[in-house]
């Protein structure tokens, strides 16, 4: 029973990893590639590590395996967010068929706000110098 469960979990994990790799190979632009890899890889590694903890059924090994799973689940979204943000800032293009770009609108609004702020600052400075 235990062995069958281990086999099923390992196969499931390997299939998730295969889907992630196929996604990173076939997807058309950087952002879709990023979204495919993070989810599938985390799930696949989780399945394989749970299978390992079932096979050894030892307290220290189980703790280690679950620590790795927790660490991966915590860190891989953060890493994906960071690299996606840097890619957008450095001007990676979106796919030509993508329909939404909310960050662009956000950035335009922010730059407008900064421009107004700079203008007000300049105005205050000139008024100051005139008063002196």
């Amino acid at each position, binding site marked *: 029973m235990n062995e069958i469960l281990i086999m099923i979990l390992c196969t499931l994990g390997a299939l998730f990893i295969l889907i992630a790799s196929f996604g990173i190979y076939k997807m058309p632009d950087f952002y879709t590639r990023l979204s495919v890899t993070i989810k599938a890889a985390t799930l696949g590694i989780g399945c394989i590590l749970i299978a390992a903890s079932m096979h050894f059924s030892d307290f220290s090994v189980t703790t280690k395996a679950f620590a790795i799973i927790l660490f991966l689940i915590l860190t891989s979204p953060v890493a994906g967010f960071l690299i996606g*943000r840097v890619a957008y800032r450095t001007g990676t293009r979106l796919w030509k068929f993508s329909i939404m770009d909310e960050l662009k609108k956000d950035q335009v609004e922010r730059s407008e706000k900064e421009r107004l702020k700079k203008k007000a600052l300049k105005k205050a400075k000139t008024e100051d110098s005139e008063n002196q």
Partner: protein
Amino acid sequence: MNVENYLMYGVMPIICLALFFIMMRFFKGPQIVDRVVALDLLITIGVGFIALFSLITDNPVFLDVAMILALIAFLSTVAFSYYISKIKKK
């Protein structure tokens, strides 16, 4: 059918195929960010590879290496993103 044999001849080839696809992307990747993501995924799958290997050889010591590798994957991605944002700003 033995579990070790199944893992060796059934599951390992699937993961090797996955590693092959990711290596293709790593060599092809049009930009540097694509390569960074491919490298991150390569190391993450290395963790799973090591876990499977420790299952096959029935030796739980290898899981320590997997833990360190998971740490290094996160660190390398953060460092690369910092580096890219610095060089593109100039």
